[in-house]
């Protein structure tokens, strides 16, 4: 395993949010962290990204890695356009401007933002901002891509397109990715491995290797349905407690 997070604990004052999480992953693996809302998934991602250093536990393999991040709250510069936000994020890399623009233009088109790419982000709808945030994250080639509820604010059709785009980019460029979500279907559709977290203080309650080819991950297929049932029961266990 290339990356290792061991016994990650985090508290805010007397509130224990993460109660000892162990996750390992390979350099080209896509892990989905699935858990109930408010269980500390975002906190966990921030620890992985190195944005939060005040935690207990081990974080290995990440020190020389580059990161890209799709924030749940977008974190776009509101006075800049989607294109300029992406260029801002790329300014820390040595990518040529012309190459960057080609890449951004393509992502803008694929994300359906064309026609809006030069408008200040503050004038865009929530869904458009989400896509601008995805464009910014995808245009930067990073060792580790972190996605925090990245596909939540977009409609179902667009969500599928964006997830396909995400998988397509991963196929070409590789890299590790961690997506956190509370949507089991998103997890089933994308993950190489699904890690289910408990409610606060979050712990790993189960892990599922998803060895079903991606083009066979459609609702109604036997293997998918079986895995979905197992996932649901793991999540129900989480919600109802271990004795339920």
């Amino acid at each position, binding site marked *: 395993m290339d990356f290792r997070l061991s016994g990650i604990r985090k508290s805010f004052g007397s509130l224990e949010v993460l109660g000892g999480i162990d996750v390992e992953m390979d350099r080209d693996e896509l892990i989905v962290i699935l858990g109930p809302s408010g269980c500390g998934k975002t906190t966990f991602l921030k620890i992985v*990204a190195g*944005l939060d250093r005040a935690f207990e536990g081990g974080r290995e393999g990440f020190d020389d890695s*580059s*990161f*890209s*991040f799709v*924030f749940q*709250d977008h*974190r776009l*510069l*509101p*006075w*800049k356009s989607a294109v300029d936000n992406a260029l*801002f*994020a*790329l*300014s*820390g*890399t040595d990518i040529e401007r012309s190459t960057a623009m080609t890449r951004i233009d393509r992502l803008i088109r694929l994300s359906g933002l064309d026609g809006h790419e030069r408008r*200040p*982000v*503050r004038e865009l709808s929530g869904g458009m901002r989400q896509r601008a945030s995805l464009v910014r994250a995808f245009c*930067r080639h990073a060792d580790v891509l972190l996605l925090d509820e990245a596909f939540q604010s977009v409609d179902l059709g667009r969500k599928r397109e964006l997830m396909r785009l995400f998988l397509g980019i991963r196929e070409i460029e590789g890299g590790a990715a961690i997506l956190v979500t509370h949507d089991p279907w998103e997890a089933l559709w994308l993950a190489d491995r699904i890690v289910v977290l408990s409610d606060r203080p979050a712990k790993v309650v189960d892990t599922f290797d998803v060895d079903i080819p991606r083009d066979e991950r459609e609702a109604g297929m036997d293997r998918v349905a079986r895995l979905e049932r197992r996932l649901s029961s793991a999540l129900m266990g989480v919600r109802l407690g271990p004795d339920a």
Partner: protein
Amino acid sequence: MSTSRNRRRLGMGLISIAALLGIWQAGASLVGKDIILPSPYRVFVELIALAPTADFAAAVGGTFARGLEAFAISTLAGSVAGFASGRFDLVRAALAPLLTTIRATPVLALILLALLWFPAGFVPVFAAFLMAFPVMAASATEGAKAAPAELLEMAALFQVPPRRVLFELRIPAAFPFFAAGARASLGLSWKVVVAGEVLSQPRFAIGTGLQSSRLLLETPRVFAWAFAAILLCGLAEWLFGRLVAGKSFRGL
């Protein structure tokens, strides 16, 4: 909707001006002596008579140039010093005694000292700079802390170079504070420039006109010069408002 609101606002402004003029006229009628309190009409006639003269144009031009100079220097220096002070504790510690001293010093004391040190034309600029600088610096200090922590965190994650974070995130986020500070220092600059001119008597200046008219007991002319200063200040603030409008980095 917005047009009718603008009309209502304009109407209220006109009513307010009419009320002030009414009170003024009533006071002038009650006093009955132009040398103490001339009527608005008398002042208007004086202003109309004064406005086409070459001296008036030169005086207004001179005061405008001084006000602009003081504003530019105080805005620039206040922005840089205040922003640095907001970003770095050491700069703040170094600047604090200076700013406190300047704030506590009466403007007249500053002007009298400046009279000893500088030529008459520069005294008003120096005094206005010293009065406006702390105002601008205080706003810029607040502005330096205005960049949201989550956006700075985002920039750190994407390893954006510090220079770009400064120019594309911190400074735009501070823009409303710069604008508010500059607006306050603009208003202050005019007042102190005219006060400085009254005492230092440069050749072409509204303040010089004010003082000369006072010495000759031409009270309507004193009022006319004061009106010229008010109009100049109003014009500058309007121009500033137009300049800043549409450049706000909203949405934070």
